Structures are given as C-alpha cells and as structure tokens.
C-alpha cells in the first residue's frame, strides 16, 4: 500500500498536473485565438498605424493617449518544454503563440477602446514587453509577461 501511495505522490500527481495543464492550457489558447480573430474582424478597417506622419488630407480634431495591456502566462506543460528547449537551444515554439496572442490582445484592447469612445484612428502605436518578476527565488511560482500597446487616438474632421 505505502509503496504505491509514495509512487502516486511522487510521480502520479506531477504527471496529472502536467496532463491537466496540457489539455486545459491548449483549450484556453485555442479559445483565445478564436476570440482574437473574431474581434479583429470587428475592428477591421479602423486605421491603427505605427507612425505619426499623417496623410496630407487628414484634418485632426482632438487627440488623446490610449493604452491597452494584458498579462499572460504559459501553462505548466509548455514551460517544461521551453525549459528542455533551453538545454539544446534553438527556436522555442511554445513561447511564440503566447507572445503573439498577448500582443494582439493588447492592440485589440487599445483599438476597441479608441473606437468605442468615438475616435477615428490610432497613430504612432508602440508596443512594449516586460517580464514580471518571479514570486519565488527558485524561479518557480508565478511569472507572467506583460504586453502594453499605446498610441495617440485622433478624431478626423
């Protein structure tokens, strides 16, 4: 009895957590991407540009700084995979979708805010990434990546 119990505690529970992380994490990621695509279609055609020089025929009414941000984290399974990848180097594929969805989410939040409040475009968009400190010294605990998108929302007259 006790040997099986110990086996379960030492290997079974971490394996179970890993499996839950894999399946739930993947489901959450797929759902998030579906949402992002649907929302991106809604703001399609709303000008979001990364420079400040305006086309000569644009007459600007009012301007205001707008921001959008999101903090995301990788699931346990993918963090382990990324850790293994760190041993041999190369492309860390598990992190790419995470950063992609975070960045698109941040831009969407900024754009949706500007659009909902009656602005006509967002110019000079900048994107920033920052890593939040781990909760514990050993590198475990909570870690997240923050994506910030900011720009100047303008109305056209």
């Amino acid at each position, binding site marked *: 009895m006790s040997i099986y119990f110990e086996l379960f505690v030492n290997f079974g529970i971490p394996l179970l957590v890993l499996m839950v992380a894999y399946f739930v*994490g993947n489901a959450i990621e797929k759902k998030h991407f579906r949402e992002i695509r649907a929302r991106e279609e809604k703001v399609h055609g709303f000008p979001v540009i990364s420079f*400040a020089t305006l086309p000569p025929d644009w007459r600007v009414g*009012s301007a205001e700084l707008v921001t959008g941000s999101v903090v995301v*984290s990788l699931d346990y399974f993918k963090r382990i995979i990324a850790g293994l990848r760190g041993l041999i180097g190369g492309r860390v594929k598990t992190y790419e979708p995470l950063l992609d969805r975070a960045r698109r989410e941040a831009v969407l939040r900024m754009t949706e805010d500007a659009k909902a409040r*009656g*602005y006509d475009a967002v110019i000079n968009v900048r994107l920033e990434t*920052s890593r939040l*400190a781990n909760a514990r*010294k050993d590198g475990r605990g909570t870690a*997240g990546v923050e994506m910030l998108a900011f720009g100047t929302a303008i109305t056209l007259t």
Partner: protein
Amino acid sequence: MSPESRYPIILSNTETIPGKQIAEFYGLVTGNTVRAKHIGRDIMAGFKNIVGGELKGYTELLQDSRREATERMVEQAQSMGANAVVNVRYATSSIAQGAAELFAYGTAVRVA
C-alpha cells in the same frame, strides 16, 4: 462632437499634438509608482499559472498602477502651467521579488 478625454490635459505619444501648434515648452515631466502584488491575487495567479492564459489580477494591477503614474505626471505638468504633454513614454522595471516600478514621462508643453 469630440470624445470625452480621461485626463484634464491633452496627452499624446507623438512629438506634437496632431492638429495643434506648440506655443511653449516647459520641460520633462515624470510620474512613477512602485507596486507589490497582493497575496490573495498572487495565490489565484499561481493556480492560473498551471493552465496558462491571462492573469486578470495582474492585468488590472498594472493598469491601475500605470494610470496612477500617468496622473502624477499630469499633476506635475499642470503645476507648471502646461495644457498638454507630448511624446509620452512608459517604462516598467522589476525592482524586487514581486514588486515593479511603473514609470511615465513626457514633455510638458502649452499648445494653441
């Protein structure tokens, strides 16, 4: 009808306020805030960290902090007599375990 602004003065991350002329420069204005994570939020985020995805508690925490840093910058600009801040930039730095500094800076100006 122009949209209602969230701040009492005009903020922009462009070098000039689009559609307006800069009449006077007042110089650099800054605002910062250092925040630590709430333990309850941290525990929830720890669970969320297993399956990944958005950590809403942290998103809100950082948004609130950034707004506070921006408000401090705006107050400083207003005390100088400015009616706008141009070229606003944000910076974030993790300064200790579980604490982060949010920093906003820009150039206070008077536009006409």
